[in-house]
C-alpha cells in the first residue's frame, strides 16, 4: 500500500504545492521505501533536493504518528520528545545550512521539532543543553558521534531514534572517517536493538554518483537481514563546462601551477556573474590568487573573500553568511567549499588547474546553479599548456559519465583501537557483544579472532606478554564491562578523538586581539620577527610566538610570501589518465570538436617535430642528453603516485644490470630518471624493464618500504593514541608524555615486532601509497603498447613540466617562476642554434 493516502504525505505535498513545488519521483520513492522499512542510498544530482528525499520521509512518518495519537485522543500524552534522526555530515560548513533548511520545514509544517548542530565548533553551553534534552534532529560529524559515545549514559539518547542518515557518503567512505561512521552506526544500532528490539532503525546514505554505488550501500548497510534499495534519480543535471582559453598557446607557460597569465580573462567572468566560486587545489594557491585579483582590479577590494581550512572559524562563518546574502562577488576557496553547501547567489564556478579527477570536478561544478533545472556553469582555467588536454578529457568524461570509484578503507586497526577506548571511556563495553558488532561492519568483516584478541590485549595490558608491558594501565574490566577508570586518560582520549592528523599548527592572532587563522609550525619557525606573510588574504607582520599562538600585526607591505600548507598532493585518477591518452590521439588527427585541442595544436606539432606525440596504444620514451646529465623520460599518464613507484622500480631494474644511480622526478603525466652516465636502453630491453613479472619482489627491492611505512605510521600513532597532537592555541599540558611516531615505530620494530599497528603501516604503504594493483595494470598495458623511443635534442614540451616539477621541492614559488622562464628561454634558444647551424651549412653550399 502506498503512503500517498496517509495524512502526513498529504500534508507535506500540500505544503510543497503552496510554494509551487512538486516532489520529484526519486523523493516520493524514498518516502515510500522509508515507510516500508527499507535502508538505502539516494543518488541524485546536486540541487534536486536530496536532503528532502530523506528528511521529509522522517517528517511524514512523524506527522502520521502524531495524527494517529490525536485520533486515539489519549489525554495523558506520553512524552516522546528526543532524538529521532541523526544526520551525519563530513563538513562543518554543511551543518549550519542543513539546520537552517530543516528548521524552516519544521516551522512551516508546524512540527514542534528541535534541530541542532553538533561538531567541533559547538559551544559547551549548547552541548550541555543537548545533554539535558536531546533535539529531535542532530546534525553531527563522525568525530562528534564518537564523542557522544564517549559520554556516560549514552544509551538514553537513543530511545526515540528512528533513522541515521549519512550525507555525502561518497566523501566519507574512502577515508578513516568513514570507518568511524561505520563503527558508530554499528554501536547505535546495537543499543537500539537491545532496548527496543521491535524498532526498525533505518540507515540511509546520500551519495553523489561514483563508480561503485552498490559497494557504497554495502559499506554503509552491511546487514544481511534488512531490506536495501538504491534510489537513483532519473534527472540529469545540466552542466556547462567552458575552458578559459589563451588567445595563443604561447600565452600559457609549459609548466607551472598558478595560471596568473590568464587571470585577466577571469575578471569579465567575475563581473558578469552574480557570485563566483573560484576553486584552487592548494591553500597557498588560493592566497596567491586572492592577492593577484586585487592587484588586477582594485575595485574588487571588499567584494572578494578567501575561504580555506586554515582560516578562523568566525571568519569562515562570516564568509558563508555573506555568500548566502550575495554580498560577495567572488570567493576563492580550496576543497573547504567542495561539498553540498547551497549558496543560492552562486551562478558561476571556476576551477583553477587540474581537478585531478572527474568526480571532484563535477562536484565543484554543482556548486553553481543549485536549484533544479538551472544549469551549472564551470570554467576551467589551465595553469599550463598541457592542462588544456585535461580540460578536453574532463569534458568527455562528464559527458559519458565515467566517474571514479571510491575504495572503502578496511582493517584500520588504529581506528578500531580508538573506538574501543572511546566506548571504555563512555559506559564501558562487553567485548563479546562489541566483537560481533564490529565484525558485522564492512571495514572489519575480515577481522580474525586472534587480531581481536591482540587489540583487546593492546588496550588492557599494553601488548602481548612476550614483550612485557609492566605497570600498564588503560582499559580495565569492572563489573563485566571494559572501562577506563583514570579521569586523566579519559580526558586526554576525548581530546584526541578523530582520524584527521595534521601537522602541528599555530593559531595566528593580532597583537591587539582577533584570530585570523592557522599556519603550520614549521612555516612560522622559519620566520624572523619583522618578516611578513599572507593569510586569509591579509599581509601580516610576524612579531613573536607565545604559547602556541603566533602574534602578528598588519603589515604595510602589499605583497609577502605565502605559507605552503602541507596538503597531500592529489594524484591524477586512473580514469582521467585513460581519457587523457585518448585525447592525445585526437589532437593531431584533428578528429575532435574540442576547442582546447585546437589551441594546443601548435604545441603538439612542436612536440611531434622534436619528438613524438604518443597515441593511446603507444608508450613514449624520450632520451635527452643535456649538461645536467642523461635524462630518461617515460609517459604512462597514470598519476604522480603511480609514477613515483614506477620510476623507483625502473631505476632499480636498470641499476641491477649495471651499477648506476639516478635522481627521480615525476608529475601526473610521466617521470624522469636522471643520471650522470648514459642509460643502457634500447627498444629491445624496454619491455623487459617494464615487465609485470616479479613485480612484488622488485617493489620491495626498489622502494624503502620501511621509510614509507614509517610515514604512514605517523597518522596511525596519533589515531591509536600513542602520540598526541598539539592543538593550535592550546598549550600542551602533558609535556612529560610527549614523544614522536617515528620513535614508536623504531621501538615497536625493535621490541614488539608483532604489533598489529606496524603491520597496518606496511599494508597502508603497499595499497594506498604504492597502489600495487594500479601499477600492475599500467605495466600490463605498457606490454601491449608500441614502444616509441626518441632521442631528443633538448627538452620537449611534454618533458618540460616534469623537469620543472623536480625543481619544485626546494624552491619558493617566485624563484621557481623565474627559473621556469629562464628554462623556457633556454629551450627556445636551443632550437634556434640548430636552425642557425643548418643555415650556415646551407651558406657553405651556396
Amino acid at each position, binding site marked *: 500500500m502506498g503512503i500517498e493516502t496517509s495524512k502526513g504525505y498529504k500534508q507535506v505535498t500540500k505544503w510543497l504545492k503552496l510554494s509551487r513545488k512538486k516532489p520529484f519521483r526519486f523523493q516520493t520513492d524514498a518516502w515510500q521505501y522509508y515507510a516500508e522499512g527499507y535502508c538505502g542510498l539516494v543518488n541524485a544530482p546536486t540541487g534536486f533536493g536530496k536532503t528532502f528525499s530523506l528528511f521529509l520521509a522522517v517528517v511524514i512518518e512523524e506527522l502520521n504518528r502524531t495524527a494517529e495519537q490525536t485520533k486515539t485522543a489519549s489525554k495523558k500524552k506520553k512524552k516522546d520528545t528526543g532524538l529521532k534522526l541523526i544526520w551525519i555530515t563530513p563538513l562543518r560548513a554543511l551543518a549550519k545550512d542543513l539546520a537552517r533548511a530543516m528548521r524552516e520545514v519544521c516551522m512551516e509544517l508546524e512540527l514542534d521539532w528541535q534541530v541542532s548542530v553538533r561538531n567541533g565548533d559547538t559551544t559547551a553551553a549548547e552541548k550541555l543543553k543537548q545533554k539535558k534534552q536531546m533535539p529531535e534532529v542532530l546534525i553531527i560529524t563522525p568525530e562528534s558521534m564518537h564523542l557522544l559515545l564517549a559520554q556516560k549514559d549514552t544509551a538514553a539518547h537513543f530511545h526515540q531514534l528512528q533513522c541515521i542518515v549519512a550525507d555525502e557518503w561518497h566523501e566519507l567512505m574512502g577515508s578513516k572517517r568513514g570507518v568511524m561512521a561505520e563503527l558508530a552506526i554499528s554501536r547505535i544500532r546495537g543499543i537500539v536493538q537491545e532496548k527496543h528490539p521491535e524498532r526498525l532503525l533505518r540507515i540511509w546514505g546520500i551519495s553523489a554518483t561514483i563508480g561503485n554505488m552498490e559497494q557504497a550501500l554495502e559499506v554503509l548497510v552491511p546487514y544481511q537481514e534488512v531490506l536495501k534499495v538504491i534510489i537513483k534519480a532519473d534527472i540529469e543535471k545540466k552542466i556547462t563546462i567552458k575552458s578559459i582559453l589563451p588567445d595563443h598557446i604561447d600565452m600559457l607557460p609549459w609548466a607551472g601551477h598558478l595560471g596568473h597569465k590568464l587571470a585577466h580573462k577571469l575578471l569579465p567572468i567575475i563581473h558578469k556573474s552574480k557570485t563566483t566560486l573560484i576553486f584552487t587545489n592548494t591553500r597557498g594557491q588560493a592566497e596567491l590568487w586572492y592577492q593577484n585579483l586585487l592587484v588586477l582590479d582594485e575595485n574588487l577590494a571588499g567584494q572578494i573573500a578567501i575561504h580555506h581550512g586554515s582560516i578562523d572559524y568566525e571568519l569562515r562563518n562570516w564568509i558563508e553568511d555573506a555568500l548566502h546574502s550575495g554580498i560577495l562577488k567572488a570567493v576563492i576557496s580550496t576543497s573547504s567549499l567542495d561539498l553540498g553547501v547551497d549558496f543560492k547567489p552562486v551562478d558561476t564556478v571556476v576551477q583553477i588547474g587540474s581537478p585531478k579527477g572527474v568526480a571532484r570536478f563535477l562536484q565543484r561544478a554543482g556548486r553553481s546553479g543549485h536549484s533544479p533545472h538551472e544549469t551549472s556553469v564551470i570554467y576551467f582555467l589551465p595553469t599550463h599548456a598541457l592542462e588544456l588536454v585535461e580540460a578536453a578529457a574532463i569534458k568527455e568524461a562528464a559527458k559519458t559519465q565515467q566517474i571514479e570509484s571510491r575504495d572503502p578503507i578496511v582493517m584500520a586497526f588504529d581506528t578500531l583501537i580508538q573506538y574501543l577506548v572511546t566506548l571504555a571511556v563512555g559506559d564501558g563495553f562487553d567485548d563479546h557483544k562489541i566483537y560481533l558488532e564490529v565484525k558485522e561492519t564492512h571495514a572489519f568483516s575480515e577481522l580474525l579472532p586472534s587480531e581481536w584478541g591482540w587489540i583487546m590485549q*593492546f588496550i588492557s595490558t*599494553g*601488548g602481548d606478554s612476550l*614483550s*612485557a*608491558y*609492566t*605497570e*600498564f*594501565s*588503560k582499559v580495565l574490566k569492572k563489573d563485566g564491562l571494559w572501562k*577506563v577508570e*583514570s579521569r*586523566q*586518560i579519559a580526558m586526554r582520549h576525548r581530546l584526541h578523538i578523530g582520524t584527521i592528523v595534521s601537522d602541528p599548527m599555530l593559531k595566528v592572532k593580532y597583537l591587539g586581539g582577533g584570530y585570523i587563522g592557522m599556519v603550520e609550525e614549521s612555516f612560522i619557525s622559519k620566520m624572523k620577527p619583522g618578516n611578513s606573510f599572507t593569510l586569509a588574504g591579509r599581509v601580516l607582520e610576524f612579531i613573536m610566538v607565545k604559547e602556541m599562538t603566533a602574534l602578528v600585526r598588519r603589515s604595510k607591505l602589499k605583497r609577502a610570501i605565502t605559507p605552503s600548507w602541507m596538503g597531500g598532493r592529489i594524484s591524477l585518477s586512473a580514469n582521467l589518465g585513460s581519457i587523457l591518452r585518448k585525447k592525445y590521439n585526437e589532437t593531431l588527427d584533428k578528429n575532435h570538436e574540442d576547442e582546447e585541442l585546437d589551441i594546443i595544436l601548435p604545441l603538439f606539432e612542436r612536440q611531434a617535430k622534436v619528438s613524438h606525440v604518443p597515441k593511446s596504444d603507444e608508450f613514449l620514451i624520450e632520451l635527452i642528453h643535456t649538461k645536467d646529465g642523461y635524462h630518461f623520460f617515460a609517459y604512462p599518464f597514470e598519476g604522480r603516485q603511480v609514477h613515483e613507484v614506477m620510476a623507483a622500480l625502473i631505476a632499480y631494474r636498470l641499476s641491477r644490470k649495471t651499477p648506476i*644511480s*639516478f*635522481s*627521480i622526478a615525476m608529475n601526473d603525466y610521466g617521470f624522469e630518471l636522471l643520471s650522470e652516465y648514459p642509460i643502457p636502453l634500447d627498444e629491445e630491453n624496454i619491455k623487459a624493464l617494464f615487465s609485470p613479472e616479479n613485480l612484488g619482489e622488485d617493489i620491495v627491492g626498489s622502494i624503502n618500504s620501511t621509510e614509507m611505512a614509517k610515514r604512514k605510521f605517523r597518522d596511525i600513532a596519533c589515531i591509536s*593514541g*600513542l602520540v598526541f597532537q598539539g592543538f593550535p592555541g592550546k598549550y600542551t599540558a602533558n609535556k*612529560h*608524555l*610527549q*614523544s*614522536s611516531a*617515528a*620513535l*614508536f615505530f*623504531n*621501538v*615497536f620494530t*625493535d*621490541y*614488539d615486532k608483532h604489533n598489529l599497528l606496524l603491520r597496518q603501516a606496511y599494508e597502508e604503504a603497499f595499497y594506498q601509497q604504492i597502489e600495487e594493483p594500479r601499477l600492475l595494470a599500467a605495466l600490463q598495458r605498457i606490454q601491449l603498447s608500441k614502444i616509441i623511443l626518441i632521442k631528443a635534442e633538448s627538452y620537449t614540451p611534454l618533458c618540460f613540466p616534469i623537469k620543472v616539477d623536480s625543481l619544485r*621541492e626546494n624552491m619558493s614559488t617566485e624563484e621557481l617562476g623565474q627559473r621556469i622562464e629562464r628554462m623556457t628561454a633556454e629551450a627556445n634558444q636551443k632550437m634556434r642554434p640548430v636552425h642557425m647551424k643548418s643555415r650556415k651549412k646551407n651558406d657553405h653550399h651556396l
Partner: protein
Amino acid sequence: MTIICKEEELILNKERSIYWAAQKMLIISDLHIGKSAHFRKHGIQVPSGVGEGDLQRLARLIDLYDPQTLLITGDMFHHKSNSEVAVFSEWRKEFSQLRFQLIKGNHDQLRPVEYASLNIELIQKELICAPFRFIHEKPESTDTTYTISGHIHPGVTLYGKARQRLNFPCFYFGENNAILPAFSAFTGLSRIQPQKNDRFYAITPSGVVAV
C-alpha cells in the same frame, strides 16, 4: 672516535657516551630511567624492553672502559619512582664499586633519600672539573670554562640525493660549549642551528661520524 677538546682527549662512543680517560670518567646525559614505565602507567603502550635495553648498553660501556666515575649530566630519572627505578636499583648493585655522580636535571625529582639509597651523589647545579664545567642546561651566558651539557637531545639531519633525509642523534661541540646526545633510546631529537666553527658528530648505526 677520539677527539681533542681543550687539549683533553675524549672518546665518543656510538652508544652515546663520552669517555674521558685522563679522569677515568664515563659521561652520559638524559638517561630518563622510568620513562617507558611512566608512559605505560598513563595508558601509552611502550614495551618494557626499551628501558632494559638502555641499562644493558650502559653495562657494556662500563665493562668496556672500566671507569672510576659515571657522570650523568642530568635527567637520569624521568619522573617519580616506578618499576623501572626498582629494576635500576637491582642493576646498580652489580656496579657497587663505581661512583655515580648526577647533576640534577629538570626531570630528576626523586627524594634525596632515594638517591642516597641508590648510591648516587647528587650535585645540585654544576660540576667544575677543569677545563670543563658539567651542567644540565647550558647557561645563557658562559665564561671561559668550556661547558658540557645535555637536556636538549641534539639531533642532526643529513641530506642525500633524491630528496633523502635522515635524522641522527649527535654530539655537538661549539666554540665554548658542547652538548651530549640523550642516552636513552626512547627520546626524541631537537635540531640545533649550526654556528660557525661548530663540530657535529652524528651517531649512525655503524659508528660516530663527523659531519
